[in-house]
């Protein structure tokens, strides 16, 4: 008899526990819906606090994805000895194309380089005054993807520099290194900003919940008078916090999504000017879920801190 009763009683308790939680969850949402302006204001502040680091992170991710393979797509400029002549440059280019670590070789003769420089620099008359063409033949060597590692390109550079009639080899990765260093700094700025604004979300929601608790002080006193524990009295405020987080997080996603849509065309046009098919990538589904989870967690933390502290101090009088 007792064995039969225990599971059903346990099941009943569990059902009652979840029913109470569901009731509080819906009840806290209903209470917020009845104060739409105040609720939207709080959610709006949470949304702005979340949207800023989220948007910076979106930009950073896009810049990294646009420049991520630049390190690997570097050409080496091989400057030939001026005395070698154009025939030697062509021969060396053929020779280099046979190498396993070279994907392509383009020859820019001294005459082509001069013509290009004359057209683009605006120093045509000055160049005429020089008499001789000061520019050497240049081979633009593109390494294979397998040889595009820092070690691979360094080895290729060494091999090219050791070849006869090669005056110098240039592998200009410094500016990319600088760009990536700047992106690293920016990433840390995003993390710091995100951390600070995340703390801001905790404080904003905490303060809102604190005011809510003060407004409902009499209600909490009565609850405690009839035997409500601190945890029971705290529960609706925790759910309110979660709703604030979810609402603010959703609004932040919408804001960042709108910003991405607004920027997509100009970014695409800019990329086209550089001959790149790059397109601005928006936030993915997983990121959206993570943002909502993070927002709800931060808001829950804020409401927990406020509710725990202030409800403990309220006793029936």
């Amino acid at each position, binding site marked *: 008899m007792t064995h039969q009763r225990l599971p059903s009683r346990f099941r009943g308790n569990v059902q009652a526990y979840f029913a109470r939680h569901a009731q509080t969850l819906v009840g806290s949402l209903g209470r917020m819906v009845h104060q739409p302006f105040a609720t939207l204001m709080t959610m709006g502040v949470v949304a702005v606090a979340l949207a800023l680091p989220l948007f910076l992170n979106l930009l950073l991710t896009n810049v990294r994805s646009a420049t991520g393979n630049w390190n690997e797509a570097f050409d080496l400029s091989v400057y030939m000895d001026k005395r070698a002549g154009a025939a030697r440059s062509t021969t060396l280019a053929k020779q280099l194309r046979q190498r396993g670590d070279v994907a392509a070789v383009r020859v820019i003769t001294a005459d082509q380089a001069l013509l290009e420089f004359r057209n683009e620099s605006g120093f045509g008359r000055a160049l005429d005054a020089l008499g001789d063409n000061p520019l050497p033949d240049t081979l633009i060597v593109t390494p294979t993807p397998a040889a595009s590692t820092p070690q691979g390109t360094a080895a290729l550079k060494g091999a090219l520099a050791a070849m006869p009639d090669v005056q110098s080899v240039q592998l200009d990765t410094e500016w990319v290194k600088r760009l990536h260093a700047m992106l690293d700094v920016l990433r840390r700025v995003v993390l710091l900003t995100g951390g600070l604004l995340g703390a801001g979300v905790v404080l904003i929601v905490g303060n809102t919940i604190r005011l809510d608790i003060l407004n409902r002080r009499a209600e909490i006193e*009565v609850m*405690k*008078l*009839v*035997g409500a*524990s*601190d945890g029971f009295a705290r529960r609706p405020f925790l759910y309110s916090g979660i709703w604030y987080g979810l609402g603010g997080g959703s609004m932040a996603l919408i804001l960042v999504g709108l910003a991405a849509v607004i920027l997509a065309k100009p970014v695409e046009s800019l990329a086209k000017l550089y001959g790149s098919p790059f397109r601005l990538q928006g936030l993915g589904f997983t990121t959206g879920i993570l943002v909502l989870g993070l927002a709800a967690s931060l808001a829950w933390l804020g409401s927990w801190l406020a509710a725990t502290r202030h409800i403990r101090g309220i006793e*029936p*009088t």
Partner: protein
Amino acid sequence: MIRFDQVHKRYPNGREALAGVSFKIDHGELAFLTGHSGAGKSSILKLIALIERPTRGQVFINDQNTSGIRPRGIPQFRRDLGVVFQDHKLLLGIARAVVAKPALLIADEPTGNLDPDLALEIMKLFKRFNEVGVTVVIATHDVHLIQHFGARRIVLGEGRVTDAGQAGAVSSP
């Protein structure tokens, strides 16, 4: 059911609300706490509901010394108690008492702001609780209501029991 043993209560502002109060209320009794304002009626109810703790002396509820109840245990203790206070808490307290069927029901001036007819109805409700075995303790200064129900009367004055009525009460010295 309820036993106060030389209970003193002094509030932080220095006011001494109870000065050595002793009395006993048995299980199933209906008792009125009466006396002028500030006599200590509400303080006794607050001590029973663990809203306040005695400065000295001991309070026993169901043979349990309330000084042994830790703050964490107070919610559970109150769940077994029916509490009816004034104003907006009145109806809530009554409703909860109907649902929870507590063994002990305490009420502080439950008819204070009510018209005489409604006050009488509320008191009849308490009487009905008592008839089904609930111990009922009501703090009131409404002498007419007390006389109407003819129940035990514990009279307080200046923080002391001046008349403990019948049923095993012990007057304060």
